[in-house]
């Protein structure tokens, strides 16, 4: 089966089948969008929540890095291949607090999840499943044929979302 690997601050869209995969979500959030009728899947691996908080945008701005720009981009790219925003459902994973005994990184994961929920809400995309928070990393596999999302971890087994 075709596997499309989504790196950090990256996105991909598949239609009809295949697997969208992203490895090692820590405080990052993986956003999987699915159009069940057309069997179109989109996956983004976002690093930070809001692009607005970075006023000095780099010349080569990468919208896939931030929740507030990555999700609209993903919707747009899915519509380009026949998806429809009103049919989309989301599954999200990540936003954890990996480092024990310290606050650094914590608020980043929480903020990423909050902003992801907020952006999805503004776009009218319901969240069909999620596996967020905690203190462990996640690898996400999104089976585009079925819409199934499988989360695997180190030492905590697998779980379907």
């Amino acid at each position, binding site marked *: 089966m075709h596997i499309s690997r989504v790196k*950090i601050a990256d996105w991909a869209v598949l239609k009809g089948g295949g697997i969208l995969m992203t*490895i090692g979500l820590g405080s990052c959030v993986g956003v999987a969008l699915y159009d069940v009728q057309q069997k179109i899947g989109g996956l983004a691996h976002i690093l930070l929540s809001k692009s607005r908080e970075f006023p000095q945008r780099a010349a080569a701005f990468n919208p896939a890095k931030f929740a507030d720009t990555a999700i609209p981009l993903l919707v747009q790219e899915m519509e380009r291949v026949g998806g429809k925003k009103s049919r989309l459902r989301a599954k999200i994973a990540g936003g954890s607090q990996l480092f024990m005994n310290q606050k*650094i990184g914590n608020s980043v994961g929480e903020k990423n999840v909050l902003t992801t929920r907020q952006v999805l809400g503004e776009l009218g995309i319901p969240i069909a499943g999620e596996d967020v928070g905690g203190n462990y990393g*996640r690898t996400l596999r999104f089976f585009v044929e079925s819409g199934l999302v499988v989360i695997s971890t*180190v030492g905590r087994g697998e779980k379907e979302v």
Partner: protein
Amino acid sequence: MGKKIVDAYKLDVLKELANIGMGHAVTALAQMLGEEKIFMDVPVATLAPLQDVPELLGGAELPVAGVFIAADGDIQLKILFVLPLDSALNLTALLLPGGWEDAEELKLSALLEVGNILTSSYLTALSLMTGLILLPSPPAIAMDMSAAIISTVMAAAHIQDDELVLMQTTLSSQEKRITGQILMLPDRGALNKIFSLLGIR
């Protein structure tokens, strides 16, 4: 084409800074370990695309232990000491007295302390060379897949460029029972300050 954040010459300077910093760090570790000899490779300073960084530690899903320290003060930078889980266990076995090898909390705290000593000796060396005041945060530890750990550090650093400067040093014990890496991620502003202090334009 945008201008590169640093050129080859500046990367060489950073490599030399890392070399001196790491020399101090490895000496400190060797003192803790006694018999076990520790070797370090020549540090590498690279300008890496953001998306490739989680792979730099030898496999995105590799289970590792990571000790993280953020330095604040005149400049801001993030330091991460990462080692594969089996190395981490070998290291704690050397540090903990007989009979305590199975105590999970002690293992964590031993690793945390090693990370703390390594990274703070690195920072001290950097501070002595540049005259910059560097205040390290208390160390934090995580055990998980390497990509999750390093991406969390990148997020904590609020990386805004799509390429980032990274100093990486590998250290290993005589029979490779222990291997580990130290990564240093300076903020963009930090780089400019370091270069101007050293008179490099």
